[in-house]
């Protein structure tokens, strides 16, 4: 599959996208189809916590593939698929029986079936390879897959299977959803949960079986789980997750095909898995809300806010002691109050200055502005209210409450503040006999 002989002198990396080589079209179609179906069905496997089952089933397919060949002597895709499906099913039933009727737990049963079936498969494969049967050439490709060996008939079979599987998901979406979320409830409303679960297991088996030729038994589970795990990062809606997971699977299939087109020594299946893993890594990092980057940014914002609020409160305290709320305070003094390095302090002060809460004097000192006094008063109020609450309601010693209040003052909402005030009867002093600044709407307490 090399475009060098073509009339137009396009470089290979561009020539791929003309899709004019029938072989390229065929392999691309096969990989994309298997990516879509494995991705879509993998969502249910993942949500039902059956991801490992996919791996065990994929490995369990190998003896079936070999046995089908030994019995018929052909590598006809339908026969091989039937052998793989039968073998997967035997494995699935074995797992179910072992975990139900013996003391062996399900995950151990998975491991047992995976290795025993895979071992048996390798045994048969070795036997076939030494049997001198010329037709067996290429059977070992089922281990890691060889997409470039796919023929019309293979892709045709794959397309029909993929279409049936996607149709099944669309048709039984509602049933699959409720069985994945709450199987006991599904049974209680009279749904045939046994059949629905069998259908889901069958689809998983099929999704694995159709990918064996291109991706192989060792790696196929990755195509089932990775796109689904990636999709979960981007959406909280099952329907969208299934679509997205299918799209990620298709994308991985296309990338795998593309890479192996550019470098003819590059295997398609493993590259599909690498592509799926890259998609997952990108999701893990960059997905909004759940992604690592988003979480780090959120934490940074919270840390900055805490630092700013701490400085405001320190300046407020300084004002209280000096008897004038806008009393200036030097950097050195601030650093004595707050365990902060000079660099962080400077940046925090610069931000506060920018927001008009703090102003810098000509002598390098800092003081609260009017708005700064207001914010500082509120924070001090929350801090002291919480200290009072801890000592009065939870009977914690006054010398133990400061550190807690230091944290809580940053997260108390106005609603919580109102409840605190009500619980404490609108107090005027904290446990250390310091004045609690009055709240914005609070009437003055009658003495």
């Amino acid at each position, binding site marked *: 599959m090399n475009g060098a002989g073509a009339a137009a002198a396009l470089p290979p990396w561009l020539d791929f996208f003309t899709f004019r080589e029938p072989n390229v079209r065929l392999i691309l179609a096969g990989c994309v189809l298997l990516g879509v179906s494995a991705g879509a069905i993998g969502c249910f496997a993942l*949500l039902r*916590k059956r991801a490992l089952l996919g791996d065990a089933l994929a490995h369990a397919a190998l003896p079936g593939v070999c046995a089908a060949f030994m019995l018929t002597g052909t590598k006809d895709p339908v026969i091989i698929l039937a052998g793989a499906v039968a073998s997967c099913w035997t494995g699935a039933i074995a797992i179910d029986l072992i975990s139900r009727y013996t003391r062996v737990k399900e995950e151990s049963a998975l491991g047992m079936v995976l290795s025993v079936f895979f071992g048996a498969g390798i045994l048969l494969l070795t036997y076939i390879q030494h049997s001198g049967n010329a037709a067996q050439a290429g059977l070992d490709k089922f281990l890691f897959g060889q997409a470039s060996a796919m023929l019309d008939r293979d892709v045709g079979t794959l397309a029909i299977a993929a279409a049936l599987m996607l149709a099944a998901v669309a*048709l*039984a979406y*509602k*049933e699959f*959803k*409720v069985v*994945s*979320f*709450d199987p*006991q*409830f*599904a*049974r*209680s*409303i*009279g*749904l*045939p949960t046994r059949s629905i679960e069998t259908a889901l297991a069958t689809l998983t088996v099929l999704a694995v079986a159709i990918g064996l030729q291109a991706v192989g038994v060792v790696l196929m589970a990755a195509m089932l789980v990775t796109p689904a795990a990636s999709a*979960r990062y981007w*959406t*909280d*809606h*099952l329907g969208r*997750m299934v679509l997205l997971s299918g799209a990620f699977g298709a994308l991985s299939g296309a990338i795998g095909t593309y890479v192996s087109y550019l470098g003819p020594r590059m295997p398609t299946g493993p590259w599909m898995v690498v592509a799926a893993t890259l998609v997952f890594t990108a999701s893990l990092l960059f997905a909004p809300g759940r992604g690592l980057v988003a979480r780090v940014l959120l934490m940074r914002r919270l840390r900055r806010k805490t630092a700013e609020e701490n400085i405001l409160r320190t300046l407020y305290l300084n004002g209280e002691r000096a008897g004038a709320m806008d009393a200036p305070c030097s950097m050195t003094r601030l650093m004595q109050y707050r365990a902060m390095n000079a660099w962080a302090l400077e940046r925090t002060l610069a931000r506060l200055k920018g927001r008009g809460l703090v102003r810098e004097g000509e002598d390098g000192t800092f003081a609260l502005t009017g708005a700064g006094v207001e914010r500082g008063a509120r924070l001090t109020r929350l801090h002291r209210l919480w200290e009072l609450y801890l000592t009065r309601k939870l009977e914690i010693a006054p010398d133990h409450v400061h550190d807690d209040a230091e944290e809580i003052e940053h997260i108390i909402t106005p609603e919580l503040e109102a409840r605190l005030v009500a619980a404490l009867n609108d107090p005027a002093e904290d446990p250390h006999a310091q004045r609690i600044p009055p709240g914005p709407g609070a009437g003055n307490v009658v003495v």
Partner: protein
Amino acid sequence: MDDTRPAPIEVHDLTVAYRHRPVLWDVDVTFPEGNLIAVCGPNGAGKSTLIKAILGLVPLASGRVSIFGKPAGEVRKLVAYVPQRESVDWDFPTTALDVVLMGRYGHIPLFGRPRARDWEIARHSLDKVGMLEFADRQISQLSGGQQQRVFLARALAQQTRVYLMDEPFAGVDAATEKAIVALLRDLREQGCTVAVVHHDLQSVPEYFDSVMLLNLRMVAFGPVESTFTTENLNKTYGGRLNLLTEVGEKLRRRQWSARR
């Protein structure tokens, strides 16, 4: 009450065993219509198992359950089930309204899609538990109490006359507790029958009409005033039930089926 009408739930000589060890022995009980029933007993007394046995979610070693006079298997849809909140993974990608809509799935034909009326009933049910404003919220972002209310709304959406609830009051906030109590009273007013697995003995007389005391076997069942007595409570919680547990343990070890 009309005496000729069959009771919502009748349990005859019910025994349930897990792996040959009986966890419920010979339970005989009839839940009367329009009653709020507390099912109480110590941990491991078989309260959840009783509910699951009535719903057909666990195999019966012996006995039978009838619902409005018919075998439970045929008319299972007449009973709405509120499972324990911890029984599902709340990180599932779905919204509160979507979960409530699942209460309608038993009324929609297999492979059919929910109709406008189903959505309407789901919204209405969510509203009844005071959760309509959270309809589109992802369920993992709800508090424990809110999740519990979503489960209750799902049962309401089934629009049935019998409700079985497994510890709906466990670990909920005050607002949710109030909402559940109001809901229970509302259901009683409509003549529904509700059996609730309940842990807080103090609130039994306030919230319920009848009480079922359970500890591997049924200790007592009847109106709260006459049944919820110190003597019965001692029988339920006090004695260690040595003989019964010991025999059960023996059966398990020797792998005898409890009468099968």
